[in-house]
């Protein structure tokens, strides 16, 4: 068998986790030695009885070959420490993964990477910000890494794709499983324009216990972590804690004090995270060491550029009533102080010009 298959085998013995594998590797150095040469009595000293039976049962070279071929057929690549495509950043983290499955490509080691993370249940402000930062950072050649979940994660990826940059999704389940299913389209795009990686073998369903490990990978693959929106007790903080342990830079977007969904971010800032109001805030910190100066658009510039598209005076007036947070049609009518029919007409005109979106039934918001 090939070396890859030996590694694949070692990573897929039921009941044997990273700690045991590490103990075995310390003793034997290479999986092939464990498979071929290890004396069963010696192994028995290193494993518990239950694991031992699993270990014995898993030594089925036909099955292993078949499974490994199946991986290739599904265009899933398997990598492990020591292999040339194994992400270099991961060597630096404690408890590094011993086997990784990915689709698409992995980020260049030289490319700076940022994790954009946050709550699944987020506001439209959060979504738009995640998208904005994803896009603008991607334009500045920063890889965007996240967990391909609902809410902020997905929007970060979305933004990076819009900015034609590289983006990597780290999953808590097999890379052939689209979870949540509503991200299907995004998932497919990312396979082509970026990568999808997981520590779990294909076919493994999402399971709550797998997500903290995934968060450790997100932190490990990135140089900095940007928290867009998170409540005080958000799972996002697992990633942040992991990042802090790994010595990564933490960035956070400030939010309103009354806004519970930003409370976590504000706390982070209080405890010393970088406060981010512009893309360049992130860039400066990331490029601090190499001294590269990259220009990034500010939010004002982007929205001003939108405004510059020629708008009729009344269109401009309605547009000025709108914000990132969606506003109900009647409130816009109140503010614009013109007839409801005219407001409807103007809003739909603006939608046609792609300047605003109807984010929910009769709720309108500007596009960034």
């Amino acid at each position, binding site marked *: 068998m090939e070396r890859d298959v030996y590694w694949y085998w070692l990573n897929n013995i039921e009941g044997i986790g990273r700690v045991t594998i590490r103990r075995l590797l310390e003793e034997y150095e290479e999986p092939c030695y464990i498979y071929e040469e290890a004396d069963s009595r010696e192994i028995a000293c290193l494993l518990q009885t239950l694991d031992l039976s699993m270990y014995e049962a898993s030594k089925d070279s036909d099955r292993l070959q078949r499974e490994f071929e199946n991986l290739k057929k599904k265009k899933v690549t398997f990598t492990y420490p020591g292999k040339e495509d194994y992400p270099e950043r991961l060597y630096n983290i404690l408890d590094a993964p011993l086997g990784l499955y990915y689709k698409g490509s992995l980020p260049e080691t030289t490319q700076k990477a940022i994790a954009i993370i946050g709550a*699944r*249940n987020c*506001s*439209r402000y959060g*979504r738009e910000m995640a998208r904005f930062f994803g896009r603008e950072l991607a334009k500045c050649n920063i890889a965007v890494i996240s967990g391909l979940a*609902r*809410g902020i994660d997905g929007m970060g990826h979305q933004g990076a794709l819009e900015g034609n940059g590289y983006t990597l999704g780290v999953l808590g389940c097999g890379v052939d499983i689209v979870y*949540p299913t*509503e991200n299907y389209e995004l998932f497919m795009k990312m396979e082509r324009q970026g990568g999808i990686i997981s520590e779990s073998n294909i076919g493994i369903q999402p399971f709550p216990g797998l997500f903290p490990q995934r968060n450790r990978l997100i932190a490990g693959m990135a140089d900095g972590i940007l928290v867009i929106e998170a409540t005080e007790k958000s799972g996002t903080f697992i990633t942040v804690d992991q990042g802090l342990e790994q010595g990564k830079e933490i960035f956070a977007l400030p939010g309103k004090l009354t806004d519970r*969904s930003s409370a976590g971010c504000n706390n982070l800032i209080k405890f010393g995270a970088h406060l981010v109001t512009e893309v360049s805030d992130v860039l400066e910190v990331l490029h601090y060491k190499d001294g590269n100066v990259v220009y990034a658009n500010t939010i004002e510039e982007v929205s001003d550029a939108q405004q510059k598209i020629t708008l009729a005076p009344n269109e401009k007036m309605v547009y000025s009533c709108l914000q990132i947070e*969606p506003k*109900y*049609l*009647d*409130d816009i*009518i*109140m503010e614009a102080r013109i007839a*409801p*029919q005219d*407001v*409807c*007409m*103007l*809003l*739909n*005109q603006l*939608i*046609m010009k*792609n300047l605003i*979106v*109807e*984010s*929910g*039934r*009769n*709720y309108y918001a500007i596009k960034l």
Partner: protein
Amino acid sequence: MYNKVLSGTLHGVEGRLITVEADVSEGLPTFNMVGFLASEVREASDRVRTALRNAGYLVPPKKITVNLSPADVRKEGSAFDLPISIALLTAYGYIPEEYTRDILVIGELSLNGDVCGVRGILPIVDYAKSQGIRKIILPYVNRKEASFIPGVEIVGVKSLKQTVEYLLGEEDIRSEPVLQMKGEMEAQFLEDFADVKGQRILKRATEIAVAGMHNILYLGPPGAGKSMIAKRIPTIMPELSYEESIELTKIYSVNGMLNKEDGLVHNRPFRMPHHSITANALIGGGRNPKPGEISLAHHGVLFLDEFLEFQKNIIEMMRQPLEDGRITISRLQGSYTFPCDFMLVAAMNPCPCGYYPDRNHCHCTKPQIDRYLKKVSQPMLDRIDMNIAVKRITYEELYEEQETEGSELIKKRVIEAHQIQKERLAPYHISFNSQIPAHLLEEVCMLGEEECRLRQEAFEQYELTARGAGKVLRVARTIADLDHSERVTSNHILEALSYRMGNFYQGGEMQ
């Protein structure tokens, strides 16, 4: 000794004539009733016998046979008590036979001989008139609803004794004056659009919906005013015409829901059935079918609050009646057709808790919302042209000083729009924009080059379906009519896009 008296019964919302024959002969004293009778009709024998005795008429024990013909029509209801008594008294010789000829008699008897009211008087009277009957004796409490049919002498009686004395010419009962009605009914509403504060867009959308008789779906949190505005829709509809009122009164008469003092339905109906309603109650039905809620909402508004809580299969039963404006119910005894030309107004919450997209209140997750919205019946949504979101109004809006438009003004605009539509659509044998079939849309909307381009752009931008695009055009046509514009312009289409029936949240995007 044999005699017969005319009476009537109901078949759906139509009347039928029934001949009540009574024969008294020598033999063992019995009281036999024949003629395909329901049990409440059969019970009449006891009521009649007791009432006759208590009214002071001696009925010697003889063999009594009563037949209700035609024998193939099932007789239901208690309205045969009075005609049976009269037929018997004639057979016994109390009343000369010729005195009862060509008089139709309807009424229920109580044991002391009083005549009680019955339901379904108007259709019977209307039918009797068409059959050439000129005099009708009926319960005093029902006299009002019968008096709208000209050409028939209506005699309201309070007791059996009074009836007999009237027939004998001993007592003169002044026949009811015919209340000649023509043109329009005068509606009396307690509600008014001016009561609704704020909610400009909701009012505008509702006005458009009524102007084109488009079915509309309100989407909003509890307490936002969905029911409040729906209740006021009849106040901006044109007044009922006399013919429409008679049609409605018949339905209400059959269901025994008429206001006894008034007799006629004046207001366009607003029906708001609870979501626990059964199929029979909504569509109409029963062994001897009675009109359901959709028929009670005829010429008016059927409001389905908590649209998603209704049983899907029951909601979907309304598909065919919604399109045809009438419902045919087939039962063992025949099929019954009830009119049900109504405007459907539905209201639903946008998520299980009702507060989405207000994230301060709503913590529903996307899968929860998806699961909730999946309950909606797609075929029914296809039949609803307009959709508008409603939001709770703020304190400032509630108490703002600004004058709000009253129903009178809106109604005027609606009537004008209806008039324009009727004239334009007359060649196609339809009256409202909501009924324009897809193949006629192009012709009716008269789109220019610019509008066609806009339609194409909108089709792509809003990811409309062919059906969705058609609905937008129909609504745009109505907006143009409210605007007195002959052609549908870009502005009309753009406004109509705000009311389109689309995804409840755009492209799966959550806030």
